[in-house]
């Protein structure tokens, strides 16, 4: 490592950013432990004199547990679809010499540029005609489809870095594409696969527009919509709302605490190399 004197400018800057990041988080946390009148009286910055867990209990009883479950189901399904479909796709893109494959790759590159808003109107009618309106499957399918382009891009990047020698060695041994895929490509793309797992999981967890347009009842509501409705319903209370925000991030926070390295590495992978 380079030797250098302490960098005061960087130190100061990092503390300012810590304040910017930390202050709203602090406001959020302390608000959730106060009753509504206390929060209104104390203001957002004062440390509460009287702690209560009522906001969390109230939220969990008002349907957030269900929204939670729905979000988990959507996330698991989306990740499942992506992990099942994208690796063979990326493998083909990297190894196949066919013209069709090139076209498919171009298609997915184009997909990068299709914002999900752009197709929301026909998507509604497609899902509705398929009888999947207000059904979690109707949210899962488009969400997975729209997570695929970036995942394909990430994974092809990783698979391209497998040295051609290795493929050739296996081909010499007479290995079939299937064998090469399972024995060589998958094991060597581990980092890429964790990246696409993280990426597609975040996409699904944070999904907003598809559930907003494609579902309506409480039984199919996901957390992000729960937060939105909470805010727009008459008679909302800020501490209760913020408690819901905290609840919505708890699972991700737990994953973060236990698998920080994998998550961070995974997201670094989004940027490629």
């Amino acid at each position: 490592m380079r030797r250098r004197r302490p960098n005061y400018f960087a130190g100061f800057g990092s503390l300012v950013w810590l304040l910017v990041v930390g202050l709203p988080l602090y406001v959020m946390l302390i608000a959730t432990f106060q009753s509504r009148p206390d929060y209104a009286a104390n203001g957002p910055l004062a440390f509460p004199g009287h702690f209560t867990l009522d906001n969390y209990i109230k939220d969990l009883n008002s349907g957030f547990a269900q929204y939670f479950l729905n979000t988990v189901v959507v996330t698991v399904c989306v990740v499942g679809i992506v992990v099942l479909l994208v690796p063979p796709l990326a493998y083909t893109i990297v190894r196949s010499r066919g013209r069709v494959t090139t076209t498919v790759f171009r298609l997915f590159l184009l997909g990068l540029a299709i914002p999900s808003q752009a197709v929301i109107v026909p998507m509604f009618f497609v899902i509705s005609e398929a009888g999947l309106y207000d059904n979690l499957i109707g949210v899962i399918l488009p969400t997975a489809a729209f997570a695929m382009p970036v995942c394909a891009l990430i994974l092809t990047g990783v698979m391209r870095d497998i040295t051609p020698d290795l493929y050739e060695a296996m081909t010499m041994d007479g290995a079939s594409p299937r064998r090469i895929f399972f024995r060589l490509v998958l094991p060597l793309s581990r980092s890429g696969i964790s990246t696409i797992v993280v990426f597609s999981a975040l996409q699904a967890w944070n999904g907003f527009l598809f559930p907003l347009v494609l579902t309506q009842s409480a039984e199919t509501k996901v957390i992000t919509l729960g937060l939105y409705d909470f805010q727009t319903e008459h008679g909302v209370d800020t501490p209760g709302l913020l408690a819901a925000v905290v609840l919505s991030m708890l699972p991700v926070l737990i994953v973060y605490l236990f698998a920080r390295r994998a998550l961070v590495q995974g997201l670094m992978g989004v940027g490629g190399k």
Partner: protein
Amino acid sequence: MKQRTRFSRTVVGGAALSLMLSLSGCGAGSDAADGDTIHVLVYGDAANKVEKELVATFNETSKVKAVLDTIPGADYQAKLQTIINSKQAPDVFFNWGGGSIKPFVDAGLLLPLDPFIAKDPGLKAKFLPSVFNSAVVDGTSYGIPMRGTQPVLLFNNGKVLKDAGVEPPETWGDLLAAVEALKADGVTPIALGGGDRWPTLMWFEYLYDRIAGPELFRKALDGDREAWASPDSRKALGKIKELVDAGAFGTNYDSVKFTDQGSPTLLATGKAAFELMGSWEYSTQQDAHPDFAKSDLGYSAFPSVEGGKGDRANLVGNTNNFYSVLKKTKHPQAVAEFLKLMYSDQFVKAQLGIGNLPTTTNTERFLDTAASPEFAKFQYDMVKAAPAFQLSWDQAYPQSAATPMYQALQQFFNGSMDEDAFIEAMRALPAS
């Protein structure tokens, strides 16, 4: 190599397994076959409690079962229009009458209710006529009143008024004087949730009514766009400007919302003295600030404007909510039975119990059982006596007018649009 194979297997097997598990999990949530049911779609909020009871009562005796579906408030209108012509369309749905159902009538989706009324005259006769007529389109009835009426009233914080030596205003002059007195006291005279935009609209509705009378808006709605450029219209706009410029709303009203409790809390905590709001302000305050609602929450009719053509007894707001019926319902008979419950004693009492005010002729008998009898009586008498009750502009116009209307209102109010530009914007609205 061995370890690598295990990894591949885990990835593929795990993914496939979780996919199957969760897909079968979601599948379980899909609809069972809809044999003999009618779907009733309502605006999702606290009042759903009563609707649930009602559906249960109906299902006790009916062979065709009713199923209650809800869509949370903010998205109700948007969702309704997207599903109303699809497989997911309900049989009966909640609406505001007027422009909110006009496009559906035009598209031939709604069932005329006159045959129902012919069979059971009570479906019309048991409701106050001024209210019932809001859901009559081109001479045909398309809606039966449900829930209650929601006139807009001028609420106040009695304690703040007393401290400033101010009375609830009777006239525009009183209001301007009150604004000055309250400002001197360091209080924001009027709380306004401008961020939601529809609270701003209420000021326009009342001032146009008081100055030009209810006819001007009715003409504009019927397609006489020049009404917006009339001298009365300009006078009303002038009054609004006068009030805003007097600092009646403070300066940050566009960052305040009613829906996140911003403006009601200003009123309850004494940081503001007045709020012009629908009658639901009362139950909102009861819920969030029960002590304030009990002791200091006051209310009065909107003041008259000197020299104006509108009666002080005129009202604006949500005249009522309605149930309308889709033509393609398979069980019109069951629906007719369901609608009869809207004027039943049980329903009226249940609505009063949660603070709604049904506009049936039997309501008067049960006013004592209301959540707050005094407030219920005040409202009921006003609605009954009102020479005109104007449906909110955003509901009277077709849905497509709402966004440009809100934009123009907000921009005129905060001064980023002048009078001529505002008139131009209102003239450009798609009329009904």
